[in-house]
């Protein structure tokens, strides 16, 4: 299974198990990337989430 197929499988599982209905990406330098390259990056993102290598992002800029 290549990176793109693995990613497709991941999203299918998320849809079935967690109710995922949509996923969108912001890709930089799209003209230079391959689908495989970006799929691998998305996989690295999810692996990082699973390891706990993430933090709540709060820009601390509320005026309310």
């Amino acid at each position, binding site marked *: 299974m290549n990176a*793109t*197929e693995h*990613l*497709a499988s*991941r*999203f*299918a599982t*998320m*849809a079935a198990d*967690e*109710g*995922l*209905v*949509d*996923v*969108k*990406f*912001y*890709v*930089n*330098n*799209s*003209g*230079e*990337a*391959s*689908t495989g*390259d*970006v*799929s691998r*990056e*998305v996989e*690295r*993102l999810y*692996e*990082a*989430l699973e390891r706990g*290598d*993430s*933090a*709540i*992002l*709060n*820009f*601390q*800029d*509320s*005026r*309310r």
Partner: protein
Amino acid sequence: MQVSGEKAVSAFLKVKRLKEHWGTWLIAGDRETVSIEDYQSVIQDMYGLRIEKLEVIFDGEHLRGMVERYRDNRARVLIWAGQPDRWKRFTAVKELTHLVIDEEEDWSVEGATTLDRLIYEFRVQNGDLTTNLAIQSEVLATIAAIEILYPYTWRLDDAARRTAGEVTTEKLALEYNLPAAVVFRALHPDHLHTCDRLWGEVRAIEAAAGA
């Protein structure tokens, strides 16, 4: 590359509604850096969503961020931690904006196919009206995010100032806490012309509705 005019006008109408709900429809001259946290709060209020934003540490290069939407009205915005803060801000706003402008017809869990369409279409760039909803969604989210962070009326003034040599793109980027590349795009004459037409159509729609 063109996008559906109808979808673009719809996106701009939603931006206007957001700002009205927000209560920070700023008057020319009253310019404060837009609060990302308040933007998220407004989206949650208006659309009944529960949104989580995370920055993620991974070996990245091309992926600035992504957004997931779930059936139970949860959403998760995931931002690459390895990029400059101004890009984190813009990426967060762009991904949040998907939650506003995307209709169900734009939704897809086939993320690998979405990526493939995004990357293939950017390579082709044949200038034809695209029926690729993934591309249209990306273009519109980017345009709408610019309208949120750097409103059209501010940009008209700044474009004139820049032409007169009074300010540079980089100075404006610092002032608004935006990436210079975003400011450059936002002030491009073609982009300003497109936004002028779209805001004109929004005004016409509201006038017809008696708003």
